[in-house]
């Protein structure tokens, strides 16, 4: 009897755990991801890509994303790598920063340096960000 109760509790515990896990996954994919792609978005942000000696490119992103990284990822504008300091941008609009020339991508908001990384910058409607290719560390 005790063994049966134990078995029942084990099966029940496992079922509850995986039900919660799959419910969360379901909500994530069908309520969060789909909702994001289905609606046009509530925020409009302007991104300027500045490469020295080249024409400044401008991208308008209409999004529901919370962070700048999510918004840029939606448009596949950036590439990079995860680091212990957060996401490190190494590529913008197909232009890779050349390590050998000490190039790196700098994020500014209305010309002001940002204290946070791209994945921690919360975006607001009408925000304007500049992604500038810098040379020299």
């Amino acid at each position: 009897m005790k063994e049966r109760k134990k078995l029942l509790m084990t099966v029940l515990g496992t079922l509850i755990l995986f039900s919660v896990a799959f419910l969360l996954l379901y909500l994530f994919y069908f309520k969060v991801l789909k909702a994001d792609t289905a609606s046009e978005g509530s925020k409009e942000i302007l991104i300027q890509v500045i490469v020295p000696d080249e024409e400044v490119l401008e991208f308008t992103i209409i999004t529901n994303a919370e962070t700048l990284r999510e918004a840029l990822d939606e448009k596949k504008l950036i590439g990079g790598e995860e680091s212990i300091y957060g996401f490190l941008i190494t590529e913008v609009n197909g232009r890779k920063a050349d390590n050998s020339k000490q190039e790196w991508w700098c994020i500014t908001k209305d010309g002001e340096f940002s204290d946070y990384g791209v994945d921690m910058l919360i975006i607001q409607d009408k925000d304007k960000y500049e992604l500038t290719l810098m040379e020299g560390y």
Partner: protein
Amino acid sequence: MRTKDMVIIGIMSALIITVQIGLAFLPNIELVSLLIILCTIVYRWKTLFIIYVFVIVEVLIYGFGIWSINYLYIWTVLMLITMLFRNKRSPFFWAILSGAYGLSFGTLCSVPYLFIGGIPMAVSKIISGIPFDVVHCIGNYVIALVLFKPLYRFLEWINQKGNDLIS
């Protein structure tokens, strides 16, 4: 603190660091949770020292980041939960607990973001981490289910041998 305790803390911390680095290429598949559970069952409060040696070495290896703040409390939370159920020996029980811990890992890690960007940032971190938490949950469940018993027996055997040698 006795010499034996210092040796245990050193060896177990080194073991946890090794398995963490060894499995770092697999996102959210880790043995650290199970080893902390096992250390807590066998070595009780000494696990606190093991955890913080592990955390200090991790910071020395990877540098300081937001994750370092998480590590200051996240493993201790697991240890405290384990202390509550330290007499349980069922692999299924620990698999469920370890799985639940894996599932709530993202939520626990979002605490610093609450202070950085408020509730919206913390919630967005939790939501964006759901797929990783689910992988963590399944990974922890399977690992604990398969490895809890053999590793517990091994650790108990070593502990017993150590005690016999001293006495």
